[in-house]
Every structure is written in C-alpha cells, then in structure tokens.
C-alpha cells in the first residue's frame, strides 16, 4: 500500500501532499520536511530508494523517489509494493501530467493543484494503485473536463478566450506577472534506468 505521495520542489516547498494514512497535521509537515532533507542530500546518480524515516513507520516503509528538473516526486510505500514498479508508476504519473497539461512544469502544479489531485485520484485510490494505463487515465480526466465545459457554460467562456488567445500566438505578454524565482524548465522525462 502507498502511505503517502509527496511532491516538492528543490527548495522543499510542498507542491502536492497526499497522505493515505492519517497523521496529525504537524507530523505531516514534519514528514514532508524530513523527507525533503533525506532526498535533498542524495546525488542524482545514486539509487532511488530510501528506507523510510523514523516518522513514517521505520524500516518497513520505503521512500521511492524521482527527481525531475525542479521537482521531487516521492512515494512512501510499505513492503507490499515493488520498488521498481513504483518507480515506473511515478513515471506514468508524471507522463500523464505532461499529457494533461501539455509540457507540465512546476507552475501547473501550483496553479492547478486541484486538477493534479484529480489526476492522482485516477492513478492511486485510497493508497491502492487503481490504473497504470496512461491512455485510460487521460480518458477519465478528459471525461471530467468535458463535464466542466458543459457545466461551466457562461463562466467557462473566459477560459476559452484564453485558449483562443494562446492559439493566436499573439506577441503580447501580460506585463504584470511577476512569478518570483520559480524555475521554469521543461521537465526531464528521460528514463532513469
């Protein structure tokens, strides 16, 4: 079973936090921090598995992570999951995000936090792997999006306008956007192994 799925960036800022086993709020934060510190000090060229920290259940649990450009994806799983299997599941999840957001980047995860959660719900449900077939996941998400459009009606118009603007490829750039130090990079989706 998967105990928790954490996504944070290179500075340890959480981008997605989903626990399937309940911990008190402060422990959750501590787990995120501890996991970040564990993962951060590891080079990219050493193995992607870690024994769980003392907080999340000790030696029975493993942290399995992947590092994509600015983001770390960490799955905390118990001994009933296959390490390499989970490693590929992370890949599936990220590739799905990439499909749904078209070249996903950290910003997507911030501004569409809810959508990321919905996508995750189609991959992992209650700690169990629900679906690993990317096309199937994308199909589910698209079904939900259609619903959004039909329900959205009038209020969805602005969104459509945005996409129209985008498609026209206007040279104008909104000037008032200051996004601080967020790193925008195309994620590195090449396989690790």
């Amino acid at each position, binding site marked *: 079973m998967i105990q928790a799925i954490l996504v944070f960036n290179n500075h340890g800022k959480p981008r997605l936090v989903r626990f399937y086993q309940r911990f008190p709020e402060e422990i959750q934060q501590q787990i995120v921090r501890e996991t970040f510190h564990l993962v951060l000090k590891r080079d990219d060229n050493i*193995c992607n598995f870690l024994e769980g920290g*003392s907080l999340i259940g000790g030696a029975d649990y493993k942290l399995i992570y992947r590092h994509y450009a600015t983001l770390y994806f960490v799955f905390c799983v118990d001994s009933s999951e296959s390490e390499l299997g989970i490693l590929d599941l992370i890949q599936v999840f990220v590739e799905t995000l990439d499909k749904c957001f078209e070249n996903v980047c950290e910003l997507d995860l911030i501004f569409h936090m*809810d959508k990321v959660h919905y996508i995750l719900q189609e991959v992992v449900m209650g700690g169990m792997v629900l679906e690993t*077939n990317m096309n199937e996941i994308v199909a589910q998400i698209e079904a939900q999006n259609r619903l959004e459009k039909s329900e959205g009606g009038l209020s969805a118009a602005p969104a459509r306008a945005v996409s129209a603007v985008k498609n026209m490829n206007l040279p104008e750039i*909104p000037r008032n956007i*200051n996004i601080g130090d967020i790193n925008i990079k195309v994620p590195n989706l090449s396989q690790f192994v």
Partner: protein
Amino acid sequence: MSDIVEKTLTALPGLFLQNQPAGGPAAPKASFSSRLGGLVRGITALTSKHEEEKLIQQELNNLKATVSAPTTTLKMMKECMVRLIYCEMLGYDASFGYIHAIKLAQQGNLLEKRVGYLAVSLFLHENHELLLLLVNTVVKDLQSTNLVEVCMALTIVSQIFPREMIPAVLPLIEDKLQHSKEIIRRKAVLALYKFYLIAPNQVQHIHIKFRKALCDRDVGVMAASLHIYLRMIKENSSAYKDLTGSFVTILKQVVGGKLPVDFNYHSVPAPWLQIQLLRILGLLGKDDQRTSELMYDVLDESLRRAELNHNVTYAILFECVHTVYSIYPKSELLEKAAKCIGKFVLSPKINLKYLGLKALTYVIQQDPTLALQHQMTIIECLDHPDPIIKRETLELLYRITNAQNVTVIVQKMLEYLHQSKEEYIIVNLFESILVLNTVDTYAPDNAWFIQTMNAVFSVGGDVMHPDIPNNFLRLLAEGFDDETEDQHLRLYAVQSYLTLLDMENAFYPQRFLQVMSWVLGEYSYLLEKEKPEDVITRLYKLLMNDSISSETKAWLFAAVIKLTPQAHSSNLVERLIQEFTISLDTCMRQHAFELKYLHENIELMKSLFPVDKSCEEMVVDASLSFLDGFVAEGLSQGAAPYKPHHQRQEEKLSQEKGDFFHETSSLKLEGIKKLWGKEGYLPKKESKIGDEVEAPPIPQENLTIENMDQVITKRDQSQVLTQSKEEKEKQLLASSLFVGLGSEGTINLLGKADTVSHKFRRKSKGKEAQREETTSAHSVTCSSLSSLSKVTCENNYLNTFSQLLDSESLTELPLVEKLSDCSLSAPSLFADNDMEIFHPPPSTAASVAKGISLYMHSNLMEVCNNEAVSISSYKIWKDDCLLMVWSVASKSGSELKSANLEIFPAENFKITEQLGCCLPVVEAESTRNFQYSVHLEKPFTEGNLSGFINYQLMDTHSVQLEFSINLSLLDFIRPLKISTEDFGKLWLSFANDVKQNIKTSESQAALPSALKTLQQKLRLHVIDIIGNEGLLACQMLPSVPCLLHCRVHTNVIALWFRSSCSSLPDYLSYQCQKVMEGS
C-alpha cells in the same frame, strides 16, 4: 523564451478573469479566482518564513470572513476551498473551513462537489466527527445516475470513511460490483478492500463477491481484486490454495501476451499485474510442494520472456526471483534465478544493484555459496558512496556471519555506525550487532564482547531501543552455562567500565551510564584490587555531575545503595546522604532517605541486598500480615475499617453516577506490590552464601584492536606481492568476510542463523516477569510517584471486574448438545467401522468425559484423511479456554507406529498440549485423541490452527499428513454472569460502543425469542428482561467483557454493544446480525 510565455499563459487563465470586465455577479467572483495566483506569487516573492506566516495568516483571516459570509455563493466557495487546500498544504491550520468543505460537497453542482470532496478528503481523518455529516451525501451520490457522481462518492469512500457508518453504504457499494461500467466496478472493488482493511468483520460475507471480481471480464477489475487477494493470502494462505490454478492461468495469459495491447507498458504486457500475481503465487507456494508444482511452468516462462530492455522488466524479474526462492524449491528454476540475481548484482545501474543485494540477502539463507560468487562485488559495495547500498550490504553480511568472520563484520558495522547520522539505521544495526554478540554463539571471547558493546553503547546510547541495554544486562546476570566463564565476563565488564569512568573529559550517553551503574552495583564485589569505596567514589562523582539526567541518577543511587553494605568505611555514604536529603529532586530525596534509614542497620541491609542474587526471586509478604496486630489495635480504638479501593470507588460511583474515573488523582497504594512496610523492607530472609570466586586471569584489554592489527599486518604482507595494493586488500577483506562459507560451512551456517534469533527471543521473553520483579526489588529506583498512582488506578479497575466475576460461579453453561448428539452426527466413516469415537487412553478418559459432559462442544468434523488414517476434530468450549481435540483413527488393517501430532504455533493463540502426544502404537481400527488447549492472546478476525501428524505404518517409512482448522472469535466468547446492578456499573465504564438495528419478521414475541437465539448461538448470558429491553453480557477469554443492550421497536431490534475492547463490539454485532437474520 517562447516556451516560458506559453507556459505562463496556460498556467494563468485565472489571472485573466481578474481583468474580465464582465458585469454583475461575475465581478466579485473573478477577483476570488485570481487570489490563489496572487497568493502564490506573494509567497514566492517572500524571503523569510516569518513573512510567509504573516501573509498566510492574513489570507486565512480573509478566507474565514468570506466563507462565513452569507452572501458567498457556492462558486466563490469553490475558489476559497482551493486556497484553503493550498494553505493547509503549507502547514497552516484551516480548520474553520472544514464544515464548509462538507457543505460544498453536499450542496454544490458537480464541479463544486468535486472540490468539496477533494477538500474533505485532504482535511479530515477517519475519526473526525464532521465526517458523519457527509454520510448522507455519499449515500445520495452512490445512488445517483450520473457516473461522475458515483465515481466521486466511491473515491471519497476509499479515502476516508467512518468505520461505524460502513453498514449504511455497504449494500450500495456491493450493488456497484454489478455495474455495467468497468471503472465503477473497479472503484467499488477498491472501496470494499478499504472496508476490509478498516473493519474486516463487516465484509466477511462478501468474500464470494471478491471471487466474482477476480473472474470479471474486465482486466482492470480483476487487477483491482488482486489487491484484496494479496492481502488476504498474506494473512492466511491456506484458505485460498484452491485459487492457485486461476492465478497461474491469469499469469500465463498475461505473459503470453493475450491481453489487449492497451495494457502494454513499454511493450511489456501489464507489468504491474504480473508483479502482483507473482507476489501472490510466492505466498501461496510457500512450503507447499503441491501448490508450487502448479506454478513452475509459468515461472519458467516468465523468466524466459522477460527480455531485459526496460526498467519494468527488471521489476518483473525481481519478483520472479523472489517467488522462485519463496516457493518449494525446484533446482532448475533456482539455477535460472541465481543467474538473474547475478545480472542484478553486476549491473552498473545503481537501482538494480540495490535490488540485487536485497535479493542476495533474501536468498543467502538457502544458498550461501551465491555470496561467495559475488564476494568481490559485495566488497565494492561496502565502500559505495551511497549509504543505502552500504546499509544493504551490511544487512547481507549480517546474514552470513559465523564464528570465523564475526570480528571483521562487527567492525564494519561499527565503522558504519560512526559515520551514519540516521537514527533508524542505527537502531536496526544495534539489533544486529547485539544478536551477533551473543557470547556463546559467535563472539570469540569476553573481552571482545564487552569492548564491542561498549562501542555500541557509547555511539548509539540514547537513540537505541531501551530493550537493548536491558537485554544486555539480563545476559550478564543470567550468564551462560559455565559459571567461572560468567564471572570472568562480569569482572571484565566491571574493570572496563571503571577504566572508562576514569578517563578525563569523556562523555557517555545516559543509557550507557545506566548500564554501567547497574553492573558496578551488582558485580563490583568481584574486584580484588579495588575496594567498594573506590567504586562509590566514582559513582559519587557522577552523581554530582549536573549534566546527568535524574533517571540515570536514580540508577547510580541504586548502585550506591547496593555497594554500601560491602563498604568498610561509610564517610562517603554519609556525605551522599547529607547532600541528597536536601535535594530538590523528590525522587532523589526519597532514595537518600531510604539509604539513610537502611544505613543505620547494616545487617538488615546486607540481607536486603545480597551479593550476586539479581537473578533470584524475592518473596515478599504482600498481605502485610505483620501489621495485623497494629490494625486490630486501631479497630478496637474505633478506627473505620479499611475498604479496598474498588469498594470505595463503587460507593462513590453509586453516589455520583457516571463520573467513574474522577477519584484517581490521589495516590492509592492498594494493589501495588508491597516492598516496604512500617518496619522497613520485607523480604524473606535469604541465607547468605559467601562463595568467593577464584581470581580470574587478567583479561586482554585490547583484544579487538589486536585483532584488527593482525588484519592490518596481513595486509602489509600482501603489499609485497605484485598485484595492485587495493585489489589485494579487497581480496583479503573478502577472505576474512566470507570465511567459513564454503561447502562444509553451509549447513552449519543455516543452523546457526536460526538458533541465534531463537535464542535471543526466548531469552527476552521467557524471563520478562521475573526480570521485572528483580529490578523492582533490587534497584528500588524507577517507580516515581506518578506512575504508582497510575498503576493503582488500573489495578483497581481490574479488581472491580474480577470481583464481579467471582461473585457468581461461571461454570454452568447451557448444554445445547449432549455427547450423544455428537456421536450421532459423526461422519459415516466411523459409523461403518463401528468404532468408538471417544477412546482416549485410560488415564485421560475421565477428564475428557468430564470435559464433554460439562461443556458445550462442536460436532466431530473430519479434517483430513488418507488411505491409512483419518483425523477428525472437535472443539470443546471450556470456561477458561478452548479445548481442541483431534482424534486420529487408523483404518482397517494398518497399525500406526509412533504417531505424533504437532500443532504449529499460531500468531494469536497460545497452544498448550494437554497430554503426551506421541503414542508408541495405534492399533488397527482404533482411535486416539490428542488434546490441545488454546488460549487467546489477542483478538483476531480469522484464525486457523494447522498442524501435522506423522506416523509409521508397519514397514514403510514415516508419513506426514497436514491439516488445518478454522477458529472463529466466537470460540472464545463465554457467557458473563453478572447482576443487573453490576451491568449498570460496567456499562458506564466502557468506552467502545457500537449500535446496530436488525429487522425481524415477528413483532410481539421478538425479544424473548431473539434473546434465546443469542444465548444459544453466541453464548451470551441473558441478565434481565425489562419490558421491551433486554440486557446481555459475555466475555471474551481470558476476561474482556462485552455488554449488550437490546430494545425492540415494532419489528426492529436495536442492539447496543459496549466493551472495554474496541474490536469486540464490532465483531459481536456482525455475529448477532448473522444469527438473527438466519433464524
């Protein structure tokens, strides 16, 4: 650059809404949706944590105002929720929004509902009270015709759902298993799995539906059901052996590429499905030759098919190898699997190397030569830059430790300990080191043992598990077989600790100091050169040290107390007493006073603290009979008689009902073991033995170092040779690590590995009770006042209950079935042969007959048979335990020799053999009974006992026959006979309750008949019937009570269970439902 622009545009449609000039109600909404963007930007621009806190607090205040404003529309609420989720993710408390999340899920349209559900699942936990408000919404959505709504409801159910509300949605979800859409079926299966995890009793009846899901035409649904099977098979593999064929067929089809191409991942067919199936097969085939034979083919196929082109094929291969080594071995497969492990270990990819080491660790017990093959790789891994790889390598080395290589391996482990900063690794390593150190197994000598332990304690000290020092002390105290050897060990320990304490500016962890003080207190008498005073001086120095915790000081003080009677001059002791009788620490002050009074009577003290008696039990007059005269005197002078605590409590309870635990704050001593009376300590006087120990030879202090020196000199010599230095060193290290792993060492190693762990465990368990007693009697330290009062409270509680039990006898049980029934209903096999069914050996005949006539018992049921014997069993529900009787009947014409029946130890039970179970001869066509009493150790949901019988027929070799039998918790439920008043009292004191309504067909006579059913089928005791209410009680062995209150309304019976145990009411309510609906 254009990329960035593109991304920013897609990422921020919300920002555009801000500039949308749309009039009317859209305007406020637009500003809301942009807030998240604004918030995020604001936070990223900040530099300090403090500023972030300020900003978020401000944000939360705004949100709080918005969500509670009546004008806020659901649409705005939706935006607010997303922001709340964001704030919570960053770790800020947004609890004010929880109720609004639930409201949104209840009232919103699809999109708003989706956000509401998401927020609820992120904010709340299973036991959150607000969650109850969601139940109705979930029920409504489950019945919706809109697929998306059903999906959302199923998702939320599988994320969080209150356990007690499961019955409300269970039938709806069961229906969904027949839904036409596979995605719904799949989610329903997972939701049911979740129920199985949190309340296994409530989904017992749908196991058959799980089987249907396994046969579902959609692969996804089938895959989902594998989660359930993996879990259930892990818990009890014997119940699912019949499914092996199906799993093998499925795997064959998957491996053979029969699935649609959709399921391929990097052109590997359904890899995750294969992994799951392989795991299941591994569990099913464990130690079971027949089942394993079914899967050899498909495993071979899997190994062959897995072409190494992608990461995920390695995942399958790894599982394959694991399975091959878990199931009943087949040499051909093992060979192939070993080759695969080689691929992993030698792989340059670090992940695969890690898994290779893991596989080696697993396999090494069956095939130690594999480690020899890869020894150079293992040596390289020891110096790997990745600590995880290093750690795994040490784990591997730990498994191959033997007497010859133990020094080197422990040295490696200690080196790692020094480097590692991670606590959990340290804790694990300690365990390994300690096991390895058990002197009589591997450790070369005393000095090495003590030195290593010193190193372990000083490095790990305070992070280690408290059991470790305790076990170490026990080891020292109990000693091994050889008494003089033990004394050497102890003396060495004492000397090494004194040396350590004499070092200037050395700092030791508290735990280490505690260990030292115990050992010094206990074994300083072994010293010849140093006087007890010298030891006390050192202890005194430590006691005056401010950096030492008060717990450790208590240990130190206990050591001083123990040494005082041996000391000749008492100056130092008196100074100590002076210092600490005015100490601010109450605990220390108490010890000081104890010492002061004891010190006045050295003779008493000597008998109290005899030398080297830490392992002997002290008998204490707990009844305080010596006070009888004093009490009589007091009574005659008109003092009120003493009431036990529970009696006082009861009286108080009857005065202020409901306030049960009110009175426990003051100190009560009733129920606590009395160590001290008015006249002082009250031990049974033990005769002093003054056997002096011969002077032990002076141990070699630096043996470990010398050992290492040898290794180093060897290395030096090797440098002379032409090969490169490094290479040589590694080979040397290898030769010292893998020594004794050759062919002749193999068997030895396996045997040893087993005994170590066993021995260690036995030691730690068996003497627990005695150990506790001795520490409490001897060190007289650790019981602080607060813990005393707590224990008292618990004890009193137990007393109350046991008194209730005592007040009425429990032996009479309703006899539902008589012995005659049993023999009548026995299988026809016995009838044909005209055998006596109960034919125990003469000595036991009486007891069995008595057992049967007194207690209820089940029908005789055949558990297994073959051409020669037939084994049947039945259960006798005795008052204090479950008595299992296996009767072994030999069939015509065969005489059994040395029939021997054994039951495997089971997790939740304590099984004790009633009679000698090895019989020399069972004559042809006769029956022998084997009895085992089964005690419940902890509650369970599904348990089974399995065992085997082996016997010899006249001329053939011995035959072994396995069997198993299911036990249900019901077998451990006994009636509890208490009065209505006691029921009332107990009722208030129990915290766990469960309510359930059951429909009945009859209306008027429902209650008496229902109660009768419960009495007969579930062995509940009917206490009282008051109008339309009934009171029942039962207990789960050994003595966990459960109370039941029934009330009848028209045609519904409301059951209300309460118990001190959390899982019992659940289980009983399920059983009641089954029984009543069945009747």
